[in-house]
């Protein structure tokens, strides 16, 4: 039986392959929907240019792999178009670790390149900003954490940091690392002229915990719990993406009932995350009443999740191969009642964010990002959908039970903060209706399928729609009981670039709102105010 999806991504991949025919050294299809093309480092910018000129997808992530057995570092450039993923693989030897930049073609790649440089020790020549991204300034040169030669148990010496760039003549107001506007630390420097912002830069890594490296030292099961704790509000999405990937590698499919329950928890988590965001964004605008009410209603969804999973945050719902618990009739009824209440409140909030005059003064026309800009900057999630870009993994590349219980995509075209608010509130309403349909038609079946302790060797890519956007996981197994490499590319890192870009020209008072508009999750993203004496 031909699968209509298979046809569509096959043709997409064929298209991609023919575009790059001249540069391919080797081509592989590791799993349905993926095409890996090995090319030489010098061909890289041209290949990327070809893909961009032909509007073939968008750059999703740059993964690094350390290959000590051949003394090489491999860089994987993942391009996604709908359900198809085309990966350009480039190898550079330890002896000559240099790659050309692709920022000339895709400016948003700068953050990925910065991360790749500092973690693997490869020089990306021509990259516009070679500053460190996650590692602190007192980390010594020459120590590359994600290379296999790095031993996490050894203590890394601290070195004296280099003096930072020259800021003469610029009036910089920092937001972060500690600031009431930020729920987590991150360093944004805004250069202002009076109240108008004229420049911006970002420095992250304040809650970097080395989770990707830590996964390599733990068994598959243990790694799942570690990844769940990458973030508090999208913790289930991380676990979901991971178990989907591991199940693909083990070639086991979780039972239908388990998949439906996973979708249930994911949907409830989305509602929770968006309500939290609504409150925080309202607080940034100074509308504390909306903050208090949306967080009061968030308690409803947290209580539902506690009743269902046993905890309000970090639901720990997934097992490799299924889920831990079942949904019985009483649970169903409680959840449906809770959803009714939430729907009524969400409709009210939709009314508030789209008609309240004082609130609209702070959100309408602020932080506008056109569709072209959004595509150029590589944003994902509700941030992109508010600018008219129809990118939603649940719709483009449905996973789990999203084929059976689909969601409709929510798009706005204005691209300003008001659109971002409206998109997220409408997404909550869509989630509620999807969950109702799901609860009325829960498929019968087992809760968990047996998965061996040693996962067969292979590489897989798992993409999931977290509340903030596309969550991209690259998992590699070498046949053992521990993962060889887990790469986590969270949606927030794609969206930070858009803040820096749209900040210029706005009032300083809009900065916290712009930051809130992308729903930043620094914890997801990361695995100082210095007054200089003049």
């Amino acid at each position, binding site marked *: 039986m031909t699968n209509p999806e298979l046809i569509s991504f096959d043709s997409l991949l064929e298209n991609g392959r023919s575009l790059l025919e001249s540069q391919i050294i080797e081509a592989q299809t590791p799993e349905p929907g993926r095409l890996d093309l090995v090319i030489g480092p010098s061909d890289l910018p041209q290949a990327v240019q070809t893909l961009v000129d032909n509007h073939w997808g968008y750059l999703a992530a740059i993964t690094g792999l350390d290959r000590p057995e051949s003394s090489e570092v491999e860089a994987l450039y993942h391009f996604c178009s709908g359900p198809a993923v085309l990966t350009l693989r480039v190898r550079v030897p330890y002896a000559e670790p240099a790659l050309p930049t692709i920022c000339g073609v895709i400016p948003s790649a700068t953050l990925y390149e910065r991360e790749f440089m500092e973690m693997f020790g490869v020089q990306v020549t021509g990259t516009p900003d070679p500053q460190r991204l996650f590692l602190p300034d007192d980390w010594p040169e020459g120590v590359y954490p994600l290379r296999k030669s790095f031993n996490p148990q050894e203590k890394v010496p601290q070195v004296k940091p280099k003096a930072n760039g020259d800021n003469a003549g610029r009036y*910089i107001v920092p937001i972060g690392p500690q600031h009431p506007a930020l729920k987590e630390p991150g360093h944004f420097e805004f250069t202002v002229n009076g109240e108008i912002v004229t420049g911006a830069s970002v420095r992250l890594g304040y809650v970097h915990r080395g989770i990707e490296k830590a996964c390599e030292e733990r068994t598959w099961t243990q790694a799942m719990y570690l990844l769940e704790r990458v973030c508090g509000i999208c913790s289930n999405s991380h676990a979901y993406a991971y178990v989907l990937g591991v199940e693909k590698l083990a070639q086991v499919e979780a039972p239908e009932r388990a998949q439906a329950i996973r979708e249930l928890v994911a949907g409830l988590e989305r509602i929770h995350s968006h309500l939290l965001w609504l409150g925080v964004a309202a607080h940034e605008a100074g509308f*504390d009443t909306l903050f208090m*009410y949306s967080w*009061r209603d968030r308690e409803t969804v947290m209580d539902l999740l506690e009743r269902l999973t046993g905890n309000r945050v970090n639901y720990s719902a997934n097992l490799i191969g299924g889920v831990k618990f079942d949904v019985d009739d009483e649970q169903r009824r409680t959840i449906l009642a809770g959803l009714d209440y939430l729907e009524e409140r969400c409709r009210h909030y939709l009314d508030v964010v789209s008609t309240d005059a004082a609130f609209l003064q702070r959100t309408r026309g602020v932080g506008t990002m056109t569709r072209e800009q959004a595509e150029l900057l590589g944003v994902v999630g509700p941030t992109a959908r508010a600018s008219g870009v129809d990118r939603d993994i649940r719709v483009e590349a449905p996973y789990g039970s999203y084929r059976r219980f689909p969601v409709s995509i929510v798009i706005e075209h204005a691209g300003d903060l008001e659109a971002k608010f409206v998109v997220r509130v409408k997404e909550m309403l869509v989630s509620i209706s999807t969950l109702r349909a799901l609860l009325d038609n829960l498929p019968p079946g087992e809760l968990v399928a047996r998965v061996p302790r040693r996962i067969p060797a292979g590489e897989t890519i798992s993409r999931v729609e977290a509340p903030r956007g596309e969550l991209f996981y690259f998992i590699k197994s070498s046949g053992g009981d521990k993962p060889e490499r887990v790469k986590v590319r969270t949606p927030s890192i794609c969206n930070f670039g858009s803040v820096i870009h749209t900040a210029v020209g706005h*009032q300083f*008072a809009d900065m*916290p709102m712009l930051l809130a508009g992308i729903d930043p999750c620094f914890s997801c993203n990361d695995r100082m105010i210095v007054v200089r004496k003049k």
Partner: protein
Amino acid sequence: MNAFLSAAALLFFPGGLSLLVSGLAYEWADRKLLARMQNRLGPRWFQPLADVVKLLSKEEIVPYGANRLIFNLLPVAALAGPLTAALYVPLFGLPPMYSFQGDLIVVIYLLSLLTICTGLAGANMASRFSVLGATRTLTQVFAYEAPFLLALLGPAIAAGSWEIRSIQAFAETRWLLLTQPLGFLVALIGLMGKLELPPFDAPEAETEIVAGALTEYSGRGLALFRLGKGVEMVVGLTLIAAFFLGGVGNLPGFLLKTLVLLLVLVTLQAVLTRFRIDQVVRGWRWGALLALLQILVMIIWG
């Protein structure tokens, strides 16, 4: 004997200590009402007192780059302004302690002393947030000061006097709220701007500039600024109640009228989003226009 009574009046009742206590009480009422409107519990009655006691017991740090003398004197001046203004205002149902022709203007200037001291305090520091906050504070002063004065001028013209005592006597005969509704509105909103209550709290926007001009203050200085704000709230509410709500001749009347005004203020706080500073300035052009219109109407219709 007279001097002793005056001193007692100045230090304890109705000025001085009782004023500070009532400032704390009104701050509590403001926070409690706001909390109940947001469906939450709110602080217990002694919270503002506890805050002040805590602040007074903390170490005061003078930041690098600030003039020490100015740093220490400004909070004192900020508290002194409203306390002095209270001498000319009918508090707690009693007539004003002192009175002379033109004391209305003096009171309005003294009330703005608090805001100006806040602005100067921010400008004194090298911290980014303080300087931005100071700029915003002073911008906001220019925005609402003129309309506020014009709005309070309405009752003065109607009463034909610059003396608060006489204006109040006139206001007791009829409710000026009914004959000068625009003036009342401008005065009330002007008071919100003066006290930097949301939605006019851009100068101390917590999520943008940490605490605005007062970011680097802690301990005694901050306690004095907060007490000053509480006193200013009481004095401002009294003035508006006395002029527009038919005078505050007796204690129950005073309490009822000022608390009703507070309720209106708190409702506006709860329901509106913070305005950006440029939006505040733009908005106040309308405020000034309305106040002028009111006065015009008054002059033409007598």
